[in-house]
Each structure stands twice: as structure tokens, then as C-alpha cells.
């Protein structure tokens, strides 16, 4: 049976005001890599952290979590794997 527990990835969605440069600076400060804007969603960025667990049933904890305390970071969400099936 499929795993019912939440599976956290090492990807984050972040909303940062101020543009790409600000996002880039904040990503670098906390060890993330800015993968770019999420589709067409303005001010939303895809952050990837290579030094966190790729798949975990626990949300990631570490120094990189302090990113949420940055004033420019309006919202942050660690990405969870969703079970999706082709029909």
C-alpha cells in the first residue's frame, strides 16, 4: 500500500518581495539554490537545498530554517510529495 505519511522533499516554494536579486541573495545566505520563478506566479521562487534530505517523513530542520525570519520572506513552504495517478 502507498505510504500514508507525508514525504517532505528538499525543495521549497518561497514568496519574496523585491525581485530576483533579493531572492538570489536570500537563497545564497541560507545555502539554497534559487531555481527561478515558479511558472508565472509573481514573486514566487523555487528554492532547492542540496544539503538536506531529499525525501523524508519529517520536515527539514536546520540553520536553513532561519530563512523564514528574513523580513523579505513573506511565505515559505517545504514541498511535500503528492500521490498523483494517470487516468
Amino acid at each position, binding site marked *: 500500500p*502507498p505510504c500514508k505519511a507525508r514525504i517532505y522533499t528538499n525543495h521549497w516554494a518561497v514568496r519574496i518581495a523585491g525581485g530576483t536579486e533579493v531572492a538570489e541573495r536570500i537563497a545564497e545566505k541560507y545555502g539554497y539554490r534559487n531555481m527561478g520563478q515558479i511558472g508565472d506566479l509573481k514573486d*514566487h521562487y523555487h528554492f532547492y537545498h542540496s544539503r538536506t534530505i531529499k525525501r523524508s517523513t519529517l520536515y527539514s530542520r536546520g540553520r536553513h530554517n532561519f530563512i523564514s525570519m528574513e523580513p523579505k520572506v513573506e511565505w515559505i*513552504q517545504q514541498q511535500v510529495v503528492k*500521490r*498523483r495517478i494517470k*487516468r
Partner: protein
Amino acid sequence: DYKPSPPLSLSSSAQLSQAQSNIFYNDAKWSSMWYIHCSDDVHNCQSDMNIMGAWKRGYTGKDVVVTILDDGIERNHPDLLQNYDPQASFDVNGNDMDPMPRYDATNENKHGTRCAGEVAAAANNSHCIVGIAYNARIGGVRMLDGDVTDMVEAKSLSLQPQHIDIYSASWGPDDDGKTVDGPASLARQAFENGIRMGRKGRGSIFVWASGNGGRSRDHCSCDGYTNSIYTISISSTAESGRKPWYLEECSSTLTTTYSSGENYDRKIITTDLRHRCTDSHTGTSASAPMAAAIIALALEANPLLSWRDVQHIIVKTSRAGHLSAPDWKSNAAGYNVSHLYGFGLMDAEAMVKEAERWRQVPAQHVCVESADRQIRTIRPEHVVRSVYKATGCTDNPNHHVIYLEHVVVRITITHPRRGDLSINLTSPSGTKSQLLANRLFDHSMEGFKNWEFMTTHCWGEKAAGDWVLEIYDSPSQLRSQKVPGKLKEWSLVLYGTSVHPYSSLRNDKPRSTDTLTLTPTEEEFTEEYNGPCDAECNDGCEGPGPHHCINCLNYFLKFKNNTRTCVSECPSGFFHDDRKRCKKCSSSCETCIGSRSDQCTTCRAGHHLNEGTHTCVASCADSFYLDYDFNICRKCPENCKKCNSSNVCTECNPGMSLQGNRCQLTCDPGTYYNGHRRTCEHCHRTCATCAGTGAEACTKCAEGYLMEDWRCVLTCSTGYYLSEQTSDNGHMQKSCKMCDHSCYECLGPGERNCSSCVSGYNLEAGACVVSTICKDESWAEGSFCVLVKRNNLCQRRVLQQLCCRTCSQKG
């Protein structure tokens, strides 16, 4: 041994036209495409999606861009290469621009390529099939071949929204019959951004395959993607019109296309991985791309269709046909709808015809009704019914909903076994939508936390009125806990318009073009004015003023030169009719409800409103008085000819007499006016005149009778004496008057005119004195007995005995 023939170029449209008129293509599987050749006698399907009809009208999806969100697209497939659009493609899983699928031994990633072929496989290239929109541009997003997260979905759904017209998705949460899941915050935001800003503000079109969990007794209302108002949820029917085994039913399904059915039913033929062709494409996965392609044909016919226009056209043109369902019903707007198939089978030709002449629907209004937070216990094997009287937000013009589109119900329920619940919603017009059916395998204890159920079944109905929510608890044998559930909260969100979506009030500018000779270009449909509109405009404008509105928010005035202007309220001297047009009142009215002179509600200066006739008069007529506070002529009381107010008559009608402030009928002598019967009736026979019925109501006695205390008697009664008095007019008036209290009978007034006494008293010189012989002097003799005698109490036997001596004394 595949030999590709040169693809048709755009300049060979003449060849194409000829090909269309004959409708024969050399693609290998062309004749096996049963869902396109439905009208032929050879095949079994009875209802046609009329795809060839749309082609014959010249619509093949040209300049429309469709992308398949799936596991990739084989962009170099011979049947897809011609129409492949790299700008409509991306690899989210690999984070690069190339959406080529990952190949493995099982060909696991064939899904996207199969879906893509249905949409835009090239025509007449000898290979495989012909896509329904064979001139559309097709792209693919590789996003299912890896960890699918909220961000992955959002990236896919918001890819190039100004370039991509239609996103087709044939995936979703698990169809195991026990999952409740939907888009998370980023994906939801992508939907909302897409419909608001995609396609240059007309809104991206999201097409979604309905759930495939029929065998698991799943219900597609537990899928937040198909449940969304922003997606067009597509169902499937087999060639026979019967329900496929995999099909789920729910109220959010909008329409249906053909797909596979039982093992003996034919499946969908399409492009397959490794440059192949397959005839085994199945499920609702095959239906969504078909629907996307048909929508592409409609968008070619009218590129300015908004995301809501597309849904309206689908509702209008889909048909029940031979689709078999036990619950087909006609809603109050006249649309046939069922939970299996939505509004029925798509009709491509009807859609393009409708699109050609389509007028954009008015702006969407969203009415969020108040939540019902009364907690109700859901007892096993019982129903909880809750009624909510919706107003449609009449108090807020920007949110007012009269004509419905989607209806969403947000529900929070706690329950020990979610699968035992079923939920129905009945609209004010009586249309019942099954928001949730029992799910045998759903044993979750999580209930529903503000879950949004959606129904399309009330499309076109009126929003205001009583909405009834019913929740049934049918405990399964697998349920261990008998703890009852609770309905914690529910609320309605009504989507729709305040103006009829197909009203003739809207802009009459024709949009149809001769599609056989002229391909419409975007310039022909571009609005000339892009600036702000007047506040009274409801749906766009052609200039800044209220007379430039395409549609009015409130009312409009029409002038003799056939122009019109929008107003917030009709001016003084005008009223508004059912169609919100301001029309003139009668000349004397200031306000009115109609144009006749008897339809005034207030009057111009110098005129008064007549209460009964609702006309405006210069002065109040006879039998009316002027109520100065309200400037109304009100009717005088009954029988008044003139009056000052509602209870003061000043002059009576003939035959009436003024008695006090009232007019009453004048009666002959010997009769009196009976107010109840409103007639004159005879007095008692002893009365000459009277004030009412009976012998005690005489005011004057008849001849030979004497007045005795409001009665008329022939002779004076005992205790009364005959009195004669001369009246003012000199006549002798006889009457009976009461004797002095000391006398039993008398001849005149006073205590010395007694003619007989009561027992115990002796008549002495005309006075009645006590006749008792006193015995021994009593203890009370003295001042007490003096008081007794002084107060004429000696007549009382007890006091007479007590004060015998004193009472016996004269004086």
C-alpha cells in the same frame, strides 16, 4: 517501412478544403476512428460529436495552442512533429526545456504522447490518426515522471499563460475511493492567475479528466481538481452510450466525450511511444484531450471567448443523445443534466456555430452567503436537513447573483467513518445535486474540513431562495464506532451574473464572420477603447462615459435618437420596468410604478395623491380630506360628505344627521337607529321616543304612560308618587318619583308625606315612627343611640331593639 509524405503546408489550404469536403484522409487508422465516423451507418455509435461538421466549417484548431500536462511528449513522433510547439512545452521533472519522456522497458511514460495525438496528430500524412484539432499547436509538460509537489503542479499550470490557450490534464489524486485531495495553495493560485490573466485576460482553459475510480466506488467530488470551477471536468461514455466501468459520477462534471468501455467496446486510437500507433487508449484520460481539441476548434471560431464563455457554450450545446443514465433530469433553466455525463456529449459543430456568433457573458459575480454554524448531530441511519434562505447578495450590486453558473458548498463535518456519508443539495428551483455518495472503502475518521463541493446542475437557475442541504449517514457493517458525526458548518458560494447571460440588452455588435472565405484575425475583434469605464457599466465599454457602456449595472435611459445611457437610479418622473429601462411617468406624477395616470406613488408640487385611485389631483374631492403629513387625499368616514380628518365629520350625506362627530341615519319618532344592523328599529311600546331597544331605553313615554326611572309605566309603582311639573313649553308633565326612604308608600316628597309604613313602624302625622315597646334600658343608650337616630338607622331591627327608648322618641 514507414514512408512519411510531405506534410501539408499552410499554403495548401485549398487542397485541404477539397479534402474536407470529401472527408477522407490517408492516415493509417483513419477509418478506424469510430468516434469521428459516428454518423456512418456502419458503426454502432448513435450520437455524433460532429467533429467533421466543425471541420467542414473550416475549423481545425489553427493558431490555437494546447499543452498536455503529463509524463512528457514524444515531440519527434511522426504524427506530432509537424504541430509540435516548443514554447508550449517544458520538463518540470528535469528542469529543462525538453519534454521528451523517459524511456524504459515498460514504456511507462506513454501517457502524454497518447493524449497529445488525440488533440493534434497531423492529417493526411499516412501515419496513425488525425487529431481532432489537427492544425492546432501541441506541446507537452513532463511533470508526472518524478515527485509531484504543489510547486510542480503550479509550474505546469502556469507555463506560458499568454501563449498557451488550453491545458489538458488526465491525472489527479488517487482514485482508490478513500482519498480526499485537491490543489494546494500554489496550484490554486496558478488556477486563479490563469483564469484572470491568461490568454491576454480572457482566461486560460483548464480541461480535466474526471476520476477513473468507478470500480473502487470513488466519487469525483473528492477530487479538488475536477471539483474546481476553473476546470472543465470531462466524463466518458462508451461507444454504446453505456456507462464505462471506470466512470465516477458527481455533480461537478460538465460534459462528456467518447472513450473506451467494456472489453468488447472499441477503444481510442492514438499516437504511442516509440513512434507507434495504438488502439488501446482508455479511460477518462482519453476523453479530456478530445474535449480540449473540440474547445480548440471553438477558440479558432472565436479567439475572444473567455474561460466562462467556453463553459457556457459547452452547457448550451452538449446533448444527452443516447447516453444511458438513470438520473437524467431537466433543471429549471431547461438544461438536461446527469451526474454521470454532466450536460451530455460534446458537439463540436454546434460549439463552433455558437462560438461564431457568441456575445461575451456578463462579468462573473461571486456571492458568499453567510455560514450556518449551528452544530447538528448526524445520527446513524438518519438525515440531517438544513435549509438556508439565500438572497444572492442583493444588497451588494458588485456581488449580486441572479443567474447561476457554478454553486459551491463549503462543509465541515466530523464523522467516525467518512465513507458512510452522502450529501445532497437542492436548489430553490428543486434541482437536486448529489454532492457526495457513499464510498465503501473510505474508512477515514478525518471527516471534511471546509471541503468545497461543487455542482454545475443549477446552471442558469435563479440563485435566491431556499437551499436545502441533506446529509445521510448510512452506517456500513465495517463501522466499529457508533459515535455520531456532526455537521459543524456549511456555507454557499454562488457564482453567476446579475444580468441574464444571453440578454439582448448587451452589445448588439455582430461578431460572426464568413468563415469559409475569411479567417478572422485578432484585429477584427480587438476593442478600440482600453481606458476606464464609467461606474455604471457592467461589462466593458467603448468609451469613458455612461453612454459608452456595453451593459448597464443598474438602469438605463433610452433617447429618441436610439442612444442609451446607464444610470444608478431612474430620475424623478421615471420608473423602471422589468428590463431595467427607465420610462416616463404620467405628467402629474413625481414617482410612479407605471406610465398610466393611475399608477402614481407621489405627485408633483401642487398636486395630491388620491388614496384610492392613485391619481394625482389638484384638490381633494368630496368625501375626501387632505392628509397634510403625507400629501394624500384620504377617504372621509362613512356617510360623511365633508370631514376634517379620519374621525371628524363636518357635513353628512342626505338622509344622515351629524351626531357628535359622526354621521348617522335619522330615524322617525318611535324608532331608534340600530348601529349594528344599520337600520331604524321600533322602540318599546311604552316609549314615544327611545335611545335603544327595551323598556329601559325610553327617552319619552307614550301617551298614557308615566316616566319612572327610564321606564314608562301606567301607574306609579310602590315606593313612588305621582309628580306633576310644568315644562318650559307650558305643558304639564307627569312622572313617578321615588318616595322618601322612611315611607313604604307616599303621596309626595319628604318624610311627612308617607301614606303607609313598613312593619314595625306606625304612621303618625304623615311620618313613619318606630312602634316597638321598649324593655329595660339597654347599655347602648346614650350618645351611640343618638347617632343611630340621627343617621336614620332606627329602622334596622337590631339597632331598634338596642336603642329602643331613643328611637321611640319623636324627632
